[in-house]
């Protein structure tokens, strides 16, 4: 064993995490090498200092009480599923609406290669944005205000198309968290319908044509172009959502790229 190898194994040795063979080999090396022995002693000194010094942060006594109270509240909420908050009530109303839609044969489902996890996240993000009164972080109809706001809030620059001419005025933008990462949420409106357009860099970067899906009364359209993944969600009807998606694509697809067109399977 040479010194480089020994240095690489030193921490595992100090932590007693090496297998028997490596451990024995390192012991032999240390007996013959003063420099590595010194490094070993230093690491042991550091470890002892870390363990014995008052670096461990103990919680204030009040925290235990607070956490217990939080858990107790959560536990009580569990036993009272009938008790409603305004947020819950609005969901019930929305779902009653879904039942109506389904009952009247209004359910359109187009099968598509959609990631179910992301879809659930997108729906949760949309519902949450309307439930907790946190629709926008930056409230502006001006794309030149909304776009720069995202700098410093996300590590990419989402395109913020102006779709006023197509009948989808911009309301603002918001930071959201989907698919295990922060994403940009752009908020548009059509009459009283709120459209959340979630944008984040596509993992693979390959362009993907749009897929539409209806779930729980929400119409969702998803596509990937120019390295960005887009998810649009709203209670608008499917043709209007398609029009919205096309509007966004016209502003965001590079002119040279072939235009993504809908894939209809339903």
């Amino acid at each position: 064993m040479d010194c480089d190898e020994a240095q690489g194994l030193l921490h595992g040795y100090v932590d007693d995490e090496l297998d028997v063979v490596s451990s024995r080999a390192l012991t032999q090396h240390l007996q013959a090498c003063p420099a590595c022995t010194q490094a070993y002693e230093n690491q042991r000194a550091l470890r002892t200092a870390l363990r014995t010094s008052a670096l461990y942060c103990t919680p204030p006594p009040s925290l235990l009480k607070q956490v217990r109270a939080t858990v107790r509240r959560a536990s009580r909420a569990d036993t009272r599923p009938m008790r409603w908050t305004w947020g819950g009530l609005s969901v019930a109303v929305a779902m009653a609406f879904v039942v109506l839609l389904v009952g009247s044969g209004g359910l359109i489902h187009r099968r598509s290669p959609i990631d179910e996890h992301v879809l659930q996240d997108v729906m949760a993000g949309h519902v949450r944005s309307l439930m907790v009164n946190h629709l926008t972080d930056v409230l502006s109809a001006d794309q030149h205000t909304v776009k720069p706001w995202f700098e410093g809030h996300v590590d990419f620059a989402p395109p913020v198309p102006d779709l006023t001419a197509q009948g989808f005025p911009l309301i603002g933008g918001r930071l959201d968290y989907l698919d295990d990462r922060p994403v940009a949420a752009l908020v548009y409106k059509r009459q009283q319908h709120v459209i959340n357009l979630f944008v984040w860099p596509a993992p693979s970067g390959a362009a993907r044509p749009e897929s539409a899906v209806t779930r729980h009364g929400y119409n969702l359209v998803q596509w990937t172009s120019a390295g960005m993944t887009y998810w649009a969600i709203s209670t608008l009807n499917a043709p209007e959502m398609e029009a919205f998606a096309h509007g966004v694509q016209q502003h965001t697809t590079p002119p040279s790229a072939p235009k993504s067109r809908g894939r209809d399977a339903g």
Partner: protein
Amino acid sequence: MVGIKVCLPQSLSQRMVHRRRRPGRVWGAPCVRYPQQSTGSGGKGDLVHAHTTRARFEQCIMPHLAAAYNLARWLTRHEQDAEDVVQEAYLRAYKFFGNFHGGDSRAWLLTIVRHTCYTWLRQNRAHELTAEFDETLHDVVRADVNPETLLLHDAQQQLLRQALEALPVAFREVVIMRDLEGLSYKDIASITDLPVGTVMSRLARARTRLQQYVTTHLHTEAKRGL
């Protein structure tokens, strides 16, 4: 209507907290099953079940409050923020508790605490997550093979604290988990969703940096003393 009332908030909350399961991760992405789920609609059964769940939670998870706070305090580097994160993490832990089927409850809780910390950091101090380890500085130390034995005593506690706080969060967390919390490499790998080899190499780099920080400051102080 009853069906809607009972099922909906649960399924929606599930979506809101759902994170995709990553391969190799044991506890990181709990697929939510609420503690009350098995008992069906509200009533006496629910009440009893909630009490038993809470008693089990109190017994298994509550004793790790200090570990949870210590990790949160070192990751957020702020007392009040750490308290907020711990509250949130415990709430999540309670909701996900149906998913905990025994095993190391401390590692299970710390996975949730760490996840909550990272979410908090992303929302409040995203720049800290992108801070990189300065490799050039690191190389200097490796070349300079420990000229003398490090002597640390109580007076240098403050120095160690500063050194730890100066580490990028991905390196700080492994030192906290190993040296302050005493977790095994395997547990740390499970909590951080990293291979054991990466845990070991991060520990090595982090500790070398700590040692360098302390040595440099001790030398400066010694010179000032002369």
